């Protein structure tokens, strides 16, 4: 019996192998998910055919138990071939409508509104690929290198943070990273920013009438959008003379969650070694070469299409330590000033937020909160030491002075040391909530609110040798100062609403909004007495019109006109220096404002050439400044009655992302005049700006031009050149060098020199002509996804031949005159960079 059953089973099994099986197949429309009746299914090998019924079902009998192919064919639909594995008995096949070979492939996808949209009269967007030439051309890759070449940005000078946007104070610019206001975006006091272009997806620079959604900002807004780690594993390694960098991006669990984490170490050891002879010539000795250490991370989760959560973090440190002494001088015959200086900064922030699209796709919400910390310590000392013979001229001069009982020896000696140290720790916490509501397909309404709470500790002091008067006689002696430590906190809050009307879609747009900013200061004196200072909220209306009246034609593709007006405000940075002793009452201090009008025209020509022209007028008022009146026991007096105007125009021609040649040419003209009415018996205020007269601010330049060219003669070779030409900044008028005498603490007579400086409306520093050059070789390792770039470049190629000079300066002890340098920091040599990047 058992044997018979076994035999029967084996036979049945064999028969099934030999004689095939039935496959149940269901065919449906892939796009609208409905069953398809009458679909022809063919198994080519056997020639068997079956047709689907009204439910899209059919049974196809196949002979083989191997893997086979079945073709589904239906009129008006793309035929589809499907492999059926041996173990499959049921199958669903989806068909799509007949396809047409794609022509122009669209590379740019639709992005969230407001994030990357560029508008004439409002903003300029620079995408990641476009940033490569400007942000990555120097020895230090920095997004600010791109910003500094944009129209509307007045050339700041080498290593200078003080770039002005259309005549506004440098501090009037606000920087935002993924919606989070970054209050300290700089390294080396402004020489470079913290924004590494390798983690930046796009940059939006707004110098016009930007939306009420954004602020507080007065002259401009810079929005940095970081990359979203949602497209797989990527690794980048950068190694150059100055920098070692690693950036890793990886999904976590699946593509719905991703993380990038990276770090960058920068040190000028090697470049400074290469230009050591030039550095030595200037008497500089870096005991700690300028360095920057940065770390970043971002974690991103999008579990469903309607919800996204992220957390961003950054930590950075930078510093420098150096000794400077004039070359070619010895203490035996000169009074030598040796400066020893060190500066260390630490900063970091973390922010988190989530974005939600509510069902119905009409409402979008974004919540954000974060914390930022910045600490800075600077200290230095100046050693003045040596012996110097009195000059004949000084002896003649001294003989005429009624200084009784003093006979000059042949020489005098000096040996004293000044020192100073300052430090601050600045914390801030911020949060905001934004909502965009699509009321109709032509009207978008936005509303939001938020605030930043900042608390600072600042202290400092020192002992500095300088010339003062004692009993009517000039004395060279130490002057001790200390900055009183008062804990302070500032709460800045805002609310806004904004309407975006597409009156005639793609032809006529109106944007109108209202923003209100408020600031309140809270402090505690060293005696423990608490105080606060309240100001009135500032209403800031904004209005923009955009008109694109012409259709694409043979001459140009698009032409857009814009006109906008808006009021902007921002609490002055000096507010942290406010003390109870200033004596201000609540609601008596207005916050500085700027009324701005901008008009523009933008035209897109064939070959992707864009030409833009914008003109503007800004009226600045309620500007804050501080004086230190004489005979006031060193107390500071503050005012908010400063005012002025800036006007000018920006022109630009650009061509983006061509396989062969692209770049941009921009020119900005800017005229700025400011006035600080309250003099308090002074000629200059605490910031060294003139009072009582109209003046050009220290950062003003009439003309700034930038030319950037990227040439790609082959697909593996790129030459990038960047040339800037900028007219000079205001230069104080220096008097003739004056010789004078003073006692030192031991009663010795010192031969000293000085110049007096007065404001000049006409004197300017020399023009600046920095020229950067970079050549890059790039290739893929064959048959792989590993991309390699090898580059060599030089920044400020003309430095050995030409370096713009500023006002004449004089050595206090020798009377030797020399022209100061216009740059914030200058070693008189071009900065080379060689490196490579590997990524996949």
């Amino acid at each position, binding site marked *: 019996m058992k044997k018979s059953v076994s035999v029967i089973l084996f036979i049945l099994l*064999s028969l099934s192998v030999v004689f095939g099986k039935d496959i149940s197949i269901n065919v449906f429309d892939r796009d609208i998910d409905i069953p398809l009746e009458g679909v022809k299914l063919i198994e080519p090998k056997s020639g068997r055919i079956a047709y689907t019924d009204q439910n899209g079902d059919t049974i196809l009998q196949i002979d083989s138990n191997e893997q086979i192919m079945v073709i589904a064919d239906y009129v008006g639909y793309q035929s589809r071939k499907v492999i059926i594995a041996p173990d499959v008995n049921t199958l669903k096949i989806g068909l799509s409508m007949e396809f047409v*070979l794609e022509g122009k492939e669209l590379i740019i996808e639709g992005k969230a509104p407001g994030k990357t949209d560029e508008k004439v009269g409002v903003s300029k967007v620079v995408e990641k690929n476009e940033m490569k030439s400007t942000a990555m051309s120097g020895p230090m890759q920095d997004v600010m290198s791109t910003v500094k070449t944009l129209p509307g940005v007045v050339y700041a000078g080498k290593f200078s943070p003080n770039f002005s946007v259309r005549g506004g104070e440098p501090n009037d610019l606000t920087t935002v990273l993924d919606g989070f206001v970054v209050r300290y975006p700089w390294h080396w006091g402004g020489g470079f920013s913290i924004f590494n272009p390798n983690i930046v997806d796009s940059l939006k620079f707004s110098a016009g009438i930007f939306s009420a959604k954004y602020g507080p900002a007065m002259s401009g807004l810079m929005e940095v959008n970081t990359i979203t780690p949602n497209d797989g594993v990527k690794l980048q390694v950068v190694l150059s003379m100055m920098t070692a960098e690693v950036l890793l991006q990886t999904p976590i669990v699946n593509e719905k969650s991703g993380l990038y984490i990276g770090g960058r170490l920068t040190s000028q050891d090697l470049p400074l070694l290469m230009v050591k002879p030039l550095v030595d010539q200037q008497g500089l000795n870096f005991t700690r070469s300028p360095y920057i250490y940065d770390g970043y991370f971002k974690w991103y989760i999008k579990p469903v299409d309607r919800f996204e959560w992220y957390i961003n973090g950054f930590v950075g440190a930078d510093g420098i330590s150096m000794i400077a002494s004039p070359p070619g001088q010895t203490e035996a015959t000169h009074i030598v000033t040796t400066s020893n200086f060190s500066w260390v900064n630490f900063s970091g922030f973390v922010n988190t937020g989530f974005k939600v699209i509510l069902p119905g796709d009409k409402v979008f919400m974004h919540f954000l909160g974060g914390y930022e910390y910045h600490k800075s310590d600077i200290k230095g000392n100046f050693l003045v030491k040596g012996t110097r013979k009195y000059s004949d001229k000084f002896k003649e001069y001294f003989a005429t002075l009624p200084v009784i009982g003093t006979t000059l020896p042949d020489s005098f000696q000096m040996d004293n040391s000044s020192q100073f140290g300052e430090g601050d720790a600045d914390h801030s916490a911020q949060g905001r909530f934004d909502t965009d509501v699509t009321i109709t397909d032509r009207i978008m309404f936005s509303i939001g609110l938020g605030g930043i709470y900042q608390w600072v500790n600042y202290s400092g002091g020192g002992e500095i040798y300088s010339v003062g008067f004692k009993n009517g006689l000039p004395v060279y002696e130490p002057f001790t100062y200390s900055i009183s430590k008062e804990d302070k906190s500032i709460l800045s809050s805002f609310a806004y609403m904004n309407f975006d009307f597409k009156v005639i879609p793609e032809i006529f747009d109106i944007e109108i909004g209202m923003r209100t900013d408020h600031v309140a200061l809270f402090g505690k004196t060293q005696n423990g007495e608490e105080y606060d200072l309240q100001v009135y909220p500032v209403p800031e209306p904004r209005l923009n019109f955009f008109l694109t009246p012409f259709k694409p034609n043979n001459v140009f593709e698009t032409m857009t006109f814009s006109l906008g007006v808006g009021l902007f405000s921002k609490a002055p940075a000096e507010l942290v220096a406010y003390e109870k002793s200033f004596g201000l009452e609540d609601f008596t201090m207005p916050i500085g404002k700027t009324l701005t009008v901008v008009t523009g025209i933008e035209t897109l020509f064939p070959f992707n050439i864009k030409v833009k022209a914008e003109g503007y007028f800004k009226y600045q008022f309620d500007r804050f400044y501080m004086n230190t009146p004489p005979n006031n026991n060193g107390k500071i007096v503050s005012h908010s009655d400063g005012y002025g105007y800036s006007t000018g125009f920006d022109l630009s021609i650009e061509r983006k992302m061509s396989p062969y040649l692209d770049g941009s040419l921009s020119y900005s003209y800017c005229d700025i005049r400011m006035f600080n009415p309250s003099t308090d018996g002074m000629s200059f205020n605490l910031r060294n700006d003139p009072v009582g007269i109209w003046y050009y601010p220290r950062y003003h330049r009439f003309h700034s031009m930038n030319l950037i060219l990227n040439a790609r003669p082959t*697909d593996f070779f790129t030459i990038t050149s960047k040339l800037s030409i900028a007219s000079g900044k205001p230069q104080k008028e220096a008097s003739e060098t004056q010789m004078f005498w003073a006692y030192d603490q031991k009663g010795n007579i010192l031969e000293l020199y000085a110049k007096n400086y007065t404001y000049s409306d006409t004197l300017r520093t020399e023009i600046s002509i920095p020229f950067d050059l970079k050549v890059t070789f790039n*290739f893929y390792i064959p048959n792989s996804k590993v991309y390699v770039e090898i580059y060599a470049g030089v920044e400020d190629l003309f430095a050995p031949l030409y370096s713009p000079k500023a006002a004449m300066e004089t050595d206090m002890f020798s009377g030797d005159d020399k022209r100061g340098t216009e740059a914030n920091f200058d070693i008189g040599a071009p900065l080379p960079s060689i490196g490579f990047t590997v990524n996949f």
Partner: protein
Amino acid sequence: MKNILYMIMICVMLSGCLSLKERYSDKKSLENINLTIMSDKSGLETVYITSSLLPSITLKGALSLDASGDTILNFNSLYTITNGWRSYTEGNLMLYGQGKIKKYDENMTIEMISKPEVIDIQSGSMRVIDTYYRNKDGAGRFKNKFDRLYETAQLLKLKDGFGQFAPSQTGLNYFFDPNRNIPEDFLTHTKRVLFPELYGINTLYKKKLLDIHYDLSLLDNTDDLIIADDLLYRKSYTDAVIGETLKEVRNSGTMLRDFNESKKLLKALYNYDYFFDTFLPQAVLQVTTKNNDYKFNNCIIIDNLKK
């Protein structure tokens, strides 16, 4: 009788379990094929085929036995990766096709039962400068590019001067254009045919034309130029030489971009039919002794087919 039945049943039962375990040596040829059989720990064997006629492509298949005991090579996927113009293009396509492996002495031949056809896309990704296309988007873009290149390859086969296949070695006197009297290789000649504008617009005004059937007097100069990606294309040339199917692909600049980024894949697709219709069936494979430095265990390597 019972014993015979048992034996028949056992043979049928065991029909799905046999694997290829023999070695072969190579011979010399102008073009080559590398056929590698990899076997993992579980004994699962995978066949990889590359060839100088199919640059940038790796064919993958599995071995099985048919009812008559012959070894069947089931082609199941095609992998490709190409680089060019600061980009890469990578993709995996599902194939369906079969070949019968025949062994004699120390050699092996493959008789094609059905030429591998592309069934569907499994995955794809692209990178252009710093823009990445992955997952669904990458797969879609890769498939579109693959289809365009395939159609372009079929178009070239209809043009004068293009032979049955494109040899792998460059510099050969293969394409001899009587109008130009200069020999050039497949890719150079293809670039000249598809994008004469790159060689100077005046090329079209001379009778030394690429397509000898193209009549210059038919050239319509009015509204004839179109700009795409820094190049001026002549629409009349597109209409006459390229044809309707690929007209927009060329006039939009996409065809040039595809060529620059994936020219090796274009060449492989041009040779695809010849490879399976003529070359592979005529090839005689022999095993060579090679370094066993593969990741999998128990490898049996057959490579370097040389005629």
